[in-house]
């Protein structure tokens, strides 16, 4: 959650808050920096939509054709993304203290993201039950749960639930 920009703070504190701070418990980034980054990525996406619209609608049928609506969306999307990025850049350059975004436990969150990305990848090679059990236990460890027996019971319970409800009751074959 961005912190309040209007709240008065001591000068030394302002300088500290405007920079990137990384500890094992906290990653703090200025909101304008993220605005510029996200704005730039979205502008690229808008550009992709705009260029793609030309390939969709080669006969250029205007607003009625399949490329008209994408062109309109791309144009406004690009404009609002540019506005967000510009506003972020101006705030970054100004001497006024910037609001910050705090990522608490950044390593745990990044580790969880890596696990989530790895999961569908692993399912491409191994059986659902073979992957999910150890994956779930690793996720428990990442979130900070350290009691082995409840951890194993929860993982086993989830696999039984998946088998009973999804495979047997709903007839969905798991990978």
């Amino acid at each position, binding site marked *: 959650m*961005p912190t309040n920009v209007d709240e008065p703070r001591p000068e030394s504190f302002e300088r500290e808050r405007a920079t990137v701070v990384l500890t094992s*418990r906290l990653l703090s980034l200025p*909101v304008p920096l*993220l*605005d510029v980054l*996200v*704005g730039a990525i*979205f502008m690229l*996406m*808008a550009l992709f*939509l705009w260029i793609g619209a030309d390939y*969709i609608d080669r006969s250029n049928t205007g*607003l*009625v*054709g*399949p490329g*008209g*609506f*994408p062109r309109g*969306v*791309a144009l*406004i*999307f690009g404009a*609002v993304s540019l506005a*967000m990025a510009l*506003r972020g850049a101006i705030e970054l350059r100004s001497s006024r203290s910037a609001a910050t975004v705090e*990522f*608490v*436990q950044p390593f*745990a*969150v990044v580790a*969880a*993201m890596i696990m*989530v*990305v790895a*999961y*569908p990848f692993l*399912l*491409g090679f191994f059986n659902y039950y073979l992957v*999910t059990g150890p*994956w*779930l236990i690793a*996720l*428990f460890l*990442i*979130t*900070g*749960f350290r009691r082995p027996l*409840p951890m194993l019971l*929860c993982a086993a319970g*989830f696999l039984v639930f*998946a088998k009973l*409800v*999804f495979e047997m*009751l*709903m*007839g*969905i074959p*798991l*990978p």
Partner: protein
Amino acid sequence: MMVNGLLSALSEMASWHVVLSMFAGLVAGYCIGSIPGLSSSIGIALLIPFTFAMRPVDSIVMLVTLYVATEYAGAIPAILVNTPGIPAAAITALDGYPMRLRGEAGTALTLSILSAAFGSILSTLLLILTSTSLASVALAFGPVEYFAIAVLGLSLVSSLSGHSMLKGFVGLFFGLGIGLIGTDPIDGVTRYVFADSLLSGIGFLPALIGLFALSSIFSMIEESIHPVPPLDKLPNVFGQFGLMRPHFWILLRSTLIGYLVSVVPGHGATISAVVSYAFQKRISKTSETFGTGNPEGVVASETGGNASVAGALAPMLALGIPGSASTAVLIGALTLHGVQPGPLLFVKNPEIPYSIFIAMIVTMPFMVILGLGGVRLWVLVTQIPKTVIAPIVTALCLLGSYASQNDIFAMWTTVFFGITGYILKKIDIQPAPIVLALILGYLTETNFRRALIASSGDPMTFFTSPISVVCLIVAAGVFLLPFIRRQKPAA
């Protein structure tokens, strides 16, 4: 139309499947609402995969019951441990928690559940009246009117976005851009398809699960360092109905306020609860004790918040426009079952809206019994550590996403939207405008192009219908109002 609809719904509902779905929805709603960090929209998104094998009526009854129960259950942790289960319950905590500190937890819980039940039943009656009348008017709509209504729905981004309107628009157009992927709705041309799995577009349910549920899990992992506040003594709740007698007029007023506020699309339970609470505080003879454990505060916020469920369902059922983030997810659920919300729903599938009405009324006594009788169980649910909930819900998100399409690609979609949604939420780009765009993008484009084709490309066609003109003017007003409000203090 109403009698036929009711009869058709009753014949569909006379089955043990419906009763079972209702109870499953109630219990799931109570569990989800009791866990801080999980909201009704997350709960509905997580439960949709379980409904694939069900009939549409069973499915929608379960999801609506879950919605109703979650909106109430959020008050339990709010009153007992000062941690709202859902955002709207934060208002209940203002007076509910001080009551608990005074040793009146049982009274606060009784007041909250009976107020919620009253608000839900009365607002459902209002829903029946308004949605059926609105739908019969909307039956005459053509592409021009539908386009205008879709634009009106999109304009509500201003109320669904966070603190920054600009970021709300960024989220909205990001959603519209993503919604373009797939096959063109009129000419059948493929657009931005870089994988075969994208031919029918981005999977709506995997995207929903990612945006609402998975992104919240990452936030939950952040919060897992804070232990759940322990509760030493479990309260006794006996359901003293006499407690409600002095609050009858508050119940009536707050229901009306909650319903009317939330019937405007985009104004969910939180705004309804805030307005009801603020109004009661203004007119109360004991306004100075609000925030220190005044029972009137609990009654007003719970009644207003729960009346908003029916209010949010009105534009969804009658016009196909989501009234809140949770109804946006409900639209997705109905679409997955081949049912399109909107005025034609009352003609083509009358059993769906009338099943919702019946379920919302029939569920209420059971909700009260389960709420009062099972309070000790719900208290235990509030005590489950986030370190346990987060991994299990993550596994459930990915399993549900896979089940929606029987394809690992759906999991990739969920992962993409989960990580993107988490980062965007950090910079105040909320998931609700993105979901709104995913739902309304198709409706907007299809009707825009159909109207233009019918008028040989004349854009003035959108100003030929009075309904369209009114909708477009209101949409422009909704767009501009926040800017005007911002300009006023500067002037």
